[in-house]
């Protein structure tokens, strides 16, 4: 495949690290020095748990943004998956059935988003805003606006498991990262993700079924939301219809902080992981300092601006040097 060969060589081409790395390190250093209780063993374990759901949502979000897309429905779909999972568990069915139902719901939304974006060439942010409304409404209708509880102990036990000291949620998140990495760098699907973002028309003219791969990117997002519902539901041993709405903001922020571009079919998973780590550390440190969640959002917004300004300054300087 010539497409594959050329885009791989482009990918190997050395690129400077995104500005998030030094900023993230500074943030960690600052938190270690100035925030009481940040370095405690308990808090560090807590950081891993806090990062796990965000890391999961951010992986498909990276692929979606690389394909010049966006998924504003991710948080609402995750909430809906969690609600469905909890309802199935509460009705006395097993964990496997609950997970299957949750994944089915996530996949439906992912396929729907993908079909509207890919087949009808509709702008992703409006499409996913519409499906956000649908998912939010469905959660509210299913639960009448109340939390779902009485799930038994299965899912809470699963959440509390650990394997050789690694907590189950962290393990699932790391597995999602590894899976996405393999998908992006060692499969045709991954090569096409780069190509769809870079030049979709060229891919179509080369005879590839770009539409199908384009749908698959969003379907992957839905699938991961379905699995991530396991962590969200397990953490509280309950489900709330709107609890994860807004989490898509953190996921999009992590991807943007990680240096993935909306316009060039260009992205790196490692950057997104650094973005997730930075946001988690920032939120955790602000929590410990007693700064409320609403101002944390403002600080994440400011951080995005800072990184974008630094990245664009560096790009200008490199262009002048060349």
């Amino acid at each position, binding site marked *: 495949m010539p497409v594959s060969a050329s885009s791989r060589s482009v990918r190997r081409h050395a690129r400077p690290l995104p500005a998030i790395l030094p900023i993230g390190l500074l943030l960690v250093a600052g938190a270690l020095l100035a925030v009481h209780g940040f370095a405690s063993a308990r808090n560090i374990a807590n950081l891993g748990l806090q990062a796990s759901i965000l890391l999961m949502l951010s992986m498909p979000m990276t692929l979606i943004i690389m394909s*010049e897309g*966006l998924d*504003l429905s991710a948080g609402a779909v995750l909430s809906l998956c969690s609600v469905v999972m909890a309802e199935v568990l509460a009705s006395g069915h097993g964990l496997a059935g609950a997970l299957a139902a949750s994944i089915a719901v996530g996949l439906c939304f992912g396929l729907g988003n993908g079909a*509207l974006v890919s087949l*009808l*060439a*509709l*702008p992703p*942010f*409006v*499409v996913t*805003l*519409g*499906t*956000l*409304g*649908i*998912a*939010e*409404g*469905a959660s*509210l*209708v299913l639960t*009448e*606006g109340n939390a779902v509880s009485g799930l038994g102990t299965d899912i809470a036990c699963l959440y509390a498991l650990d394997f050789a000291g690694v907590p189950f949620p962290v393990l699932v998140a790391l597995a999602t990262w590894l899976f996405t990495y393999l998908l992006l760098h060692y499969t045709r699907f991954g090569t096409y993700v780069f190509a769809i973002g870079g030049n*979709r*028309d060229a891919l*179509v*003219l080369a005879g590839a079924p*770009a*539409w199908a791969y384009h749908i698959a990117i969003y379907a992957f997002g839905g699938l991961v939301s379905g699995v991530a519902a396991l962590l969200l539901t397990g953490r509280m041993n309950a489900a709330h219809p709107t609890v994860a709405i*807004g989490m898509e*903001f953190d996921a*999009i*922020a992590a991807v*943007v902080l990680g240096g993935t571009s*909306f*316009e060039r079919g260009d992205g790196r998973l490692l950057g997104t992981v650094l973005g997730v780590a930075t946001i988690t550390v920032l939120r955790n440190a602000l929590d410990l300092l007693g700064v*409320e*969640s*609403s*101002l*944390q*959002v*403002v600080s*994440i*917004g*400011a951080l*995005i*601006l800072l990184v*974008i*300004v630094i990245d*664009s300054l560096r790009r200008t300087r490199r262009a002048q040097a060349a």
Partner: protein
Amino acid sequence: MIPGSNAPEATSRLPAHWRHRLAGDHAALALRAVLIALIGLALALSSDAFLSTANVLNVLRQASLIFLLAAGLTLVILCGGFDLSVAANLTLSACLAAGVIKAGFSPWLGVVTALACSTAAGALNGLAVTLLRLPPFLATYAMLWILQGLAFHYMGGQEIFGFPPAFRALGTGFLLGVPVPVYLMAAVLVAATIFMRSTNLGQEIYAVGANPEAARLSGIPVRRRQMLVYMLSGLMSGIAAVVFLARVNAADAGMGEPLLLPVIAAVLIGGTSLFGGVGSVLGTVLGSIILALVINGMNLLDIRAQWQPLVVGVVLLAAVMVDLVGRGRRERIG
């Protein structure tokens, strides 16, 4: 395909072509008027309360609130951009205005606060798009959360309520039997239509949205026009904030959020294309009335409020399809 980054060949419709397309525009507007009549007929048949004068005026009042936000968004979209922050901008402006009025200052200082805050937020959107070159939906999405976060912080979970009657008249008052906000809607409609159709600025905004590269080459200061529409959109959020605050007589940090989807849907159903350069504020008025009818209908038919996001989400997706059909040809080759 991202608004604001249209490839030059994607939607190249030049100002000179508009006069020829006016006949088509009239047909599209007539179609929307028929749709309004059909929804109205269906509601009149299924609910006795619908055709009462009070309810019709209520629908118009609801439509005017949606329209005030949607009119600003229409200008941004016509210019090839997008503004996801309109509803959050309304929330913060209304909360700040409420704080100023409640602190004992003149209500007019509250109005000025709302307009200043919202226009400043619009200017920040404009700077992020023109100076930092961020994709509009990303810049205004981040702004949405920043404004929302500031509003939550400012309110601290509280509600501010109870304003002087003179201020409340802006939202609840009547003039010759018609609600005051409806006059505002009419005034904004006339002003915006004249601005867009008959001034150079308005024509240049269409040109930038239709083809930014061609607009730049013909000497239009593209970035200054983009800056202008984001500030106008901000200003409209402030006006809507004042009207909303005066009507509900209370401010809380969640007040604007349910408006975002209906407002976007109203613009798209009104026939304004997400790809820039095509559409009108007149279409947006009809779209706003359609959305107000849908919401009013759900209330009259006793559909629980929990269904509202779902229904509005479906309407929004339907609205994007309208845009797709109206666009004539697909931008993508496969």
